[in-house]
């Protein structure tokens, strides 16, 4: 039932990501996508950095 608005949001998000920030893209959709993307980026970035450091230390042995 909720698929349609979410599909719309994802489409808007993809448009925003491809640089098409047309006034038709609702601000709320862009910001929802940006917020979720920022969280994934920061969390995955930090976890990735820790794992890389662990691997580097393993090689140090």
């Amino acid at each position, binding site marked *: 039932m909720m698929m349609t608005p979410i599909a719309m949001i994802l489409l808007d998000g993809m448009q925003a990501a491809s640089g098409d920030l047309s006034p038709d893209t609702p601000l*709320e959709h862009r910001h929802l996508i940006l917020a979720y993307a920022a969280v994934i980026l920061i969390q995955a970035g930090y976890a990735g950095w820790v794992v890389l450091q662990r691997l580097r230390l393993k090689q140090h042995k």
Partner: protein
Amino acid sequence: MMKKLLWLWGAASVAALVWGTRLALFVAPTEATMGNVQRIFYWHVPSAIMGLIFPYVNFIAALVYLGLRRKKPAGALKADALALAAAEVTLVFVSIGLITGMLWGRASWGIWWTWDERLTTYLLLWLLYVSYMLVRRFSSTGQTHTLAAVISVFAAIDVPVVYMSIRWWRTQHPSPVFFGGKDSGIDPSMMPAFLWCLLGWAMWGVFLLCLRYGLERRRQTIAYNTALRAVEVGLEGNA
């Protein structure tokens, strides 16, 4: 064995997050006044909550470090590794709380930022942990760990002020959603999505904490062995 358990825990936290996010984006109803942007809530609030819990792991570990540093240096080093890991995890969650909050604020209030009590005290918490990391990284006084522990104390004092800010003052930030009296709370149909996301981010936070703690302990061991080798080489040179 512990390593396997840790990675299993990490996988379980990702599964909880995937399920929670599915509920947040596809199942929870659209909020009446804010529309779809309110779905930021399902990741913003759990991250903000984690940003108020991990400072206490950092604080307690810092206190243990201060208590043990002369009597039991080995135990103090463990506590120090935990304090550093908790500080980094806190910084990650507080940064996310600020960024998602600003994105949500811009879409629903029309502004990125306002100097209200909740936002300002939360920014202060972020600045305290940035200072903590800078002290750990660049201080060369020989008292680095003690200085960092003092910053942990300041941060622990700020946390209850952040929590109470929306109860003590009238702020632009919404009044408490949970434990805020009669008019607080969310629609029961939104609760499963919120609880799954909260569980997922809490588990993920613990996973990151353990992962980072293990890394710091390895660094400490390597630093200790390197120093020991240098002393041995020095002694051999003198002999």
